[in-house]
């Protein structure tokens, strides 16, 4: 059946949900606990209890712990958003990037930096606000372009998404080009995507948006399952399709905006993690949701720690590692479980 492979049915053998999620939770805790010890310089265990030099204390608590936390949140948010888009559009290629949401968010954030203004309400930094507006603008444009004709064909949605994505990216480069020197470098640096955070402010800048998104997405597992059957069937089973979709668009845009505003666009996580999780756990979103949350976080933390360790003191952009690690693993899984 068309769609069978990506939806994770053909392999047949699934990991039992309870054991799988328990294992993933342990892995996630281990990653969060051990992650800060991995990096260009090795740190003694004593930093946990106030030991080590002042520099080591600084590296551990002010750099690595926030980096690990932000990476985990970003990975979770992107993976859950990808999973949600794939279910809503019933298409394996629907991700925050192919739909233009991430580019829209990036454009919004760049415009904020370019403008040099400093606004924002408590709890909602200006850059996230602009990124959110950009993400919502992009997703509205994509949905609006394709919903004018009944049916919302997925090929049409993806084409529109790619068009919007390119348009936003070009506009972003234009904004960067006309920006003042200082702003321009800031935008360029941020565009490369990275998790070079310092201190806890970025953690709290990402946390609420990813948590809000994750909360809503995890609550709507049954609805996402039914949306996989198509809008008509979902509606006939009692899902308030329009309301559920609008809500999901809003929270995924918010989560993507929250992540992109701090980390820049980090590709591949939003597409690959949901697919891998689906191949391992099956397509039931009540299990797949938590699985994406945990494995997205673990995956991005691992990639980020690896990016900082392979050629120290240089730090490879994390996006390079996500694709280098994830690509072959994904192909391997697909070949092993999907194609027979």
């Amino acid at each position, binding site marked *: 059946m068309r769609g069978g492979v990506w939806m994770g*049915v053909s392999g047949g053998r699934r990991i039992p949900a309870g054991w799988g999620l328990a294992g993933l939770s342990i892995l996630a805790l281990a990653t969060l606990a051990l992650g800060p010890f991995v990096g260009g310089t090795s740190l003694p265990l004593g930093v946990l209890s106030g030991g080590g030099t002042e520099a080591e204390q600084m590296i551990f608590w002010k750099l690595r712990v926030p980096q690990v936390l932000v990476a985990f949140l970003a990975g979770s948010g992107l993976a859950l958003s990808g999973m949600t888009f794939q279910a809503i559009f019933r298409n394996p290629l629907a991700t925050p990037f192919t739909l233009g949401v991430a580019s829209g968010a990036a454009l919004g954030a760049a415009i904020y930096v370019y403008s040099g203004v400093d606004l924002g309400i408590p709890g909602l930094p200006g850059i996230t606000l602009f990124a959110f507006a950009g993400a919502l603008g992009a997703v509205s444009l994509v949905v609006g372009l394709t919903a004018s004709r009944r049916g919302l064909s997925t090929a049409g949605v993806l084409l529109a998404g790619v068009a919007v994505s390119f348009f936003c990216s070009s506009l972003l480069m234009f904004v960067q080009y006309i920006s003042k020197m200082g702003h321009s470098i800031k935008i360029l640096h941020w565009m490369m995507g990275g998790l070079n955070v310092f201190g806890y402010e970025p953690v709290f800048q990402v946390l609420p948006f990813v948590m809000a998104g994750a909360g809503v997405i995890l609550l709507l597992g049954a609805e996402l399952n039914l949306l*996989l059957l198509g*809008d008509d069937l979902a*509606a006939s089973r009692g899902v308030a399709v329009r309301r559920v979709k609008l809500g999901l668009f809003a929270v995924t845009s918010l989560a993507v905006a929250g992540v992109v505003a701090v980390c820049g666009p980090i590709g591949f996580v939003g597409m690959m993690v949901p697919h891998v999780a689906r191949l391992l756990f099956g397509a039931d979103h009540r299990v797949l949701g938590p699985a994406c949350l945990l494995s997205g976080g673990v995956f991005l933390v691992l990639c980020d720690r690896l990016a900082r360790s392979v050629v120290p003191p240089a730090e490879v952009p994390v996006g390079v590692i996500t694709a280098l690690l994830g690509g072959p693993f994904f192909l391997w899984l697909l070949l092993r479980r999907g194609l027979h």
Partner: protein
Amino acid sequence: MEAAQRSAASGAEPILEARGLGVEAEGRPILAGVAFSLPVGEALAILGPNGAGKSTLLRCLLQIQPLGSGEVLVEGRPLAGLRPRERARLLAYLPQLDGRGVPFTVREFVAMSRYAYVELFGGLGLEDRRAVDRALEMTGMAPFSERPMSTLSGGERQQAHMAAALAQEARVLLLDEPTAFLDYGHRARIHEILSAVRGELGTTLVLVTHDVNEAVAVADRVLALRAGRVVFAGSPGDLLEPEVLRSIYGVGFSLVPRGPGEPPLVTSGGRPDRPEEPAREPSGAAS
């Protein structure tokens, strides 16, 4: 069982009523002034040529497609005022299969139909499991319950969809060409299930079909559409006139007599009234 008792008690009170339904798409009327009333426990067949608005009518009855004008009443209550879950407990839908994979096992897929009964955070209760089991039994899908949907044949998949619609335990079941593309065996199986559903559960049926013989065999009433308007409404007996059929489809028909007590077999053999339009697959707003 409960449904059967209810239907016996309420007699011939209409369960589904359409009043002046109209839908337009891009300025063109798809449905205009469609009205009917269907008593509890009866079966209505909707006939008509491709593009007549049959599927659109079904989608309007389910409130999947917004109405331009008119209203749908279920048990005397306007459908528009109901919440989606309340609606799903009254009306179930068997759509035309679109050939897309469903990434679940048969049992998982059927269990998802209990959405309208399961509250937030709630799993399937005893009642829900019973409904799922009964639907699997009634459709003969119990032996297939652990099979992934993607490994089923077309006929088995249709039976699984039927099981899912039954597990919803709605009072009215609306089916869009349930036997299209099925072989004779699976077609007979579906008809058997439908008569069991009527007999055991007292479910009211609305069935879109292209097959006049199927309509006559299954339904108590027939509604025929042409270009979005009702051109025939009556009993299957009244439908079985070559002139009536010609007025619906614009082509000649012959009636082949069968044994006593059996309705004649309808075959189309005539020449079309006018040059035939290019064949269109019934899909979306056009059908």
